[in-house]
């Protein structure tokens, strides 16, 4: 009887210990960071966004949650502005603003003690608004598309709280602009953005 009691005690303590151990591992991997950023974005391909606008310049803030091992989730919000360089194909509209969210999963690779690379894959949403020149209100359009890219991250303090992040990303843009001519519908609905970002990251 005594033996059995001892055995079960050992068993219980082992199991609780292993559980605690596991929990600690889980928490050890969870890391948060926020990074305010600036971005510049250009349009690739044959589409009205490329023909109509200059560079898009934006600023915003992002958040990252490292969840398990080197994997995590992140989101970036960016507010973009662009100048119209050729209004002919845009309609009687003023310079647009764009609200953009990039949602993504990332994987982080440690290259050296203070240099990391992150690979990113996710989905973007866009809302582009332009004022009507002839009447009040705004014309808005937008939808979403896949995004993927990479970030290079340098640690700039001894404790590893502060980092500088340089990123580049490709964002697919798919809107739903219809036209009886399918080539024109495509021309107004599909685009590819290439963007570069510079961010200050704070880890906690």
């Amino acid at each position, binding site marked *: 009887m005594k033996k059995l009691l001892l055995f079960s005690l050992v068993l219980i303590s082992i199991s609780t210990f292993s559980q605690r151990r596991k929990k600690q591992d889980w928490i050890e991997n969870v890391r948060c960071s926020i990074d305010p950023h600036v971005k510049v974005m250009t349009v690739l391909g044959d589409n*009205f966004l490329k023909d109509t606008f200059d560079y898009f310049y934006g600023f915003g803030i992002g958040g990252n949650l490292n969840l398990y091992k080197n994997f995590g989730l992140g989101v970036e919000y960016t507010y973009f502005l662009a100048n119209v360089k050729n209004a002919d194909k845009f309609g009687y509209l003023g310079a647009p603003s764009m609200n953009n969210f990039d949602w993504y999963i990332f994987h982080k690779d440690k290259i050296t003690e203070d240099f990391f690379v992150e690979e990113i894959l996710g989905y973007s949403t866009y809302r582009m608004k332009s004022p009507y020149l002839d009447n009040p209100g705004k014309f808005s359009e937008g939808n979403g598309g896949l995004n993927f890219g990479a970030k290079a991250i340098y640690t700039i303090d001894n404790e590893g709280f502060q980092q500088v992040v340089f990123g580049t990303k490709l964002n697919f843009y798919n809107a739903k602009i219809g036209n009886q001519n399918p080539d024109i519908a495509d021309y107004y609905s599909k685009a590819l953005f290439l963007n570069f970002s510079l961010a200050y990251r704070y880890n906690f």
Partner: protein
Amino acid sequence: MEGKFTYSDGKFLEEPIHLIVDKKIIAESFPKESGSFVLAGPYDKGSYKLQLKDFKIKSFSTDTPGCKISSDSLSIEIPDGVTYVIFNDITLK
């Protein structure tokens, strides 16, 4: 919208041409020297028109049914739901 004007007075090129829905301008452009033009704008629904400022339209040709010259001859009216139309030859008075 794409098309081509046949004009005689060079002043025609100095005036903007418009697409108008419900009295609102949705697109503005200037015809090229050849008379060709492209107009594109945000369009949802309703009939609309290709509007000229001072020059009157004598005739036009298109494959799109339902288009007609307005009573003041300053515009071509286009029926609801047409999102792509070509006017091969718009001749001015």
